[in-house]
């Protein structure tokens, strides 16, 4: 169950308490996030919406251990990540976070198979075990027959499927999706969101997603709005869409 009001103890998988992020640009301080609290349970699918500059991607970067907060704490499965060293944080990301980016961010000189295999190169798995994991991940995203294709030989939707396979291949604790359909047409976007929903429903993955698209957000179990660095509302997607006046 997602909560934005709890500032005390909880048993949630992801616990954010009093999160602040301030950037300094020239002499000016820009407060991007202000005292955020958030609880996300295992198997939750949360969409973050909000206007540009509202702090969605910053929140995602902080949750993924790519950036450090100015104040506040983030705990994931009991690990407090906000005070980890850079090296520890890198190790933590490898074990716990699967990233899906808007622009897919595949390595163009590697095949789909090799791209998906990348996170497993950091593990102690043997070559055979790695192959089994990669084939399973590519099978889940429906690209078992595209293993030896390079990104340039795939459509945008297929590239994003490979990126999702890369994100899930090491079975991370949660997935962070930053505008996963932002560069896709509606049909491809629907297919990708069907896949993400399937990951949550069938494989019990925890997904946190940033999107501008209200239609895409309807796929999430919970939609949270970020405005000027504050989580201002939480609700069921259909209510959210109704509030936003969208589809």
């Amino acid at each position, binding site marked *: 169950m997602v909560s934005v009001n709890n500032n005390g103890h909880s048993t949630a998988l992801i616990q954010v308490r009093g999160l602040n992020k301030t950037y300094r640009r020239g002499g000016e301080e820009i407060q991007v996030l202000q005292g955020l609290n958030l609880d996300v349970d295992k198997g939750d699918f949360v969409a973050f919406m909000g206007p540009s500059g509202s702090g969605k991607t910053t929140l995602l970067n902080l949750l993924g251990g790519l950036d450090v907060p100015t104040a506040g704490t983030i705990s994931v499965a009991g690990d407090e990540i906000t005070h980890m060293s850079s090296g520890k944080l890198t190790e933590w990301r*490898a074990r716990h976070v699967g990233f899906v*980016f808007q*622009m897919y*961010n595949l390595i163009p000189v590697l095949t789909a198979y090799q791209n998906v295999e*990348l996170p497993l190169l950091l593990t102690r798995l043997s070559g055979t075990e790695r192959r089994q994991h990669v084939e399973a991940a590519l099978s889940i995203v429906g690209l078992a027959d595209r293993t030896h294709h390079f990104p340039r030989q795939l459509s945008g939707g297929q590239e994003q499927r490979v990126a999702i396979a890369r994100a899930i291949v090491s079975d991370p604790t949660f997935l962070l999706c930053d505008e996963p359909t932002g560069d896709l047409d509606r049909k491809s976007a629907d297919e990708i969101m069907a896949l993400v929903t399937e990951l949550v429903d069938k494989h019990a993955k925890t997904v946190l997603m940033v999107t501008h698209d209200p239609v895409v957000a309807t796929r999430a179990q919970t939609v949270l709005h970020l405005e000027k660095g504050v989580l201002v509302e939480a609700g069921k997607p259909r209510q959210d869409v109704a509030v936003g006046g969208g589809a």
Partner: protein
Amino acid sequence: MKFFQLIKANLFRKKVRLLLTLGSFAVALFLFAFLVVVKEAFSRGVDIAGADRLVVVNRIGLIQVMPISYRDKIAAIPGVKAVTHDHWFGGVYQDEKNFFPQFAIDVENHRLVYPEFIVPDVQWKNFVKDQQGAIAGAQTAKRFGWKVGDRIPVKNSLYGPTKSWEFNLDGIYHTEKSGGDESQFWLQWKYFDENVPSVMKSTAGWYILRLDSPDDAVRVAKTIDETFANSSSETKTETESAFAAGFAKQFGNIEFLILSIGSVVFFTLLLVTGNTMAISVRERTGELAVLKAIGFKDRSVLFFVMAESVAIALVGGLLGLGLAILAIPVVGTALNGLLPNLILSRSALVVGIGFALAVGAASGLLPGIGAMRLRVVNALRRV
């Protein structure tokens, strides 16, 4: 090994750039090998010079001769074990381009002073008995296809009108020292002396003496030069290695020249490959950020960049050295003995590979550190 595919894929990302960078290394290492070979050729005389040998030359210069009577006086100096003398002959075989060093030698004492030149006893005895006899180094004999028993005409114009001196090849010598000179051609000093104009008769080009002990070198050299001071042919005595070094310096400061060219090559190569690697890393900022985002550590990213750079350097370097191994003997033959033996030694190859690896590592280091310090959030924002 599990990262091999990733490194290989990145290496072949831009094939033309890869080929050009490999070519830069190959050309640089090819040039490096040539410079080292030329330097070693000039310094080889110094390296293989006997520690217990002194060379006596005319103080005015190497081309001035000294009376043959000096031999007995030098031999009488305490500490001198044996004395021999050489005279430059300076002929050509068939054609002007067929240059090789020819010396009129003192057959009685030559082997006592130069034990490293190996001539079978039978051949040496035939040579001593044969006034028109000659002995050639194995390299020269091979070069002209000579064999023992051949009649060798050598044209000479240094001692009067050009005429052909005929020699019987009685033997072929080898050297026991690695890199030793096997290009010389020896004739008998007596035969030479009988056939030169009267002004050149009873003279020696230089004396070479062997000492009882290298410790006597300074004292003996001083005694010799004092003995012939204020004579018509004053002497300059020095160790064989100093003589060889002085001889090499007649061609200029080869070492400085080679060091200068080598330094320019090194820094040019460093700039070229450093720039190439920097561009290559800059083009992949987003990809490197993704690698770091999914859990590759900073040092892994540094390793990938360095590995690419070092791999290019190693392959390019080996290519250049391989070409040098093939080309140097061809060039050596084409030079017709104008330079001493061109030999690409194993140590030069090792230094060359080390040089390539050092340039590869140095050129990959800065871009690698840049990639290592890349902040994922900033880099992803730029994609």
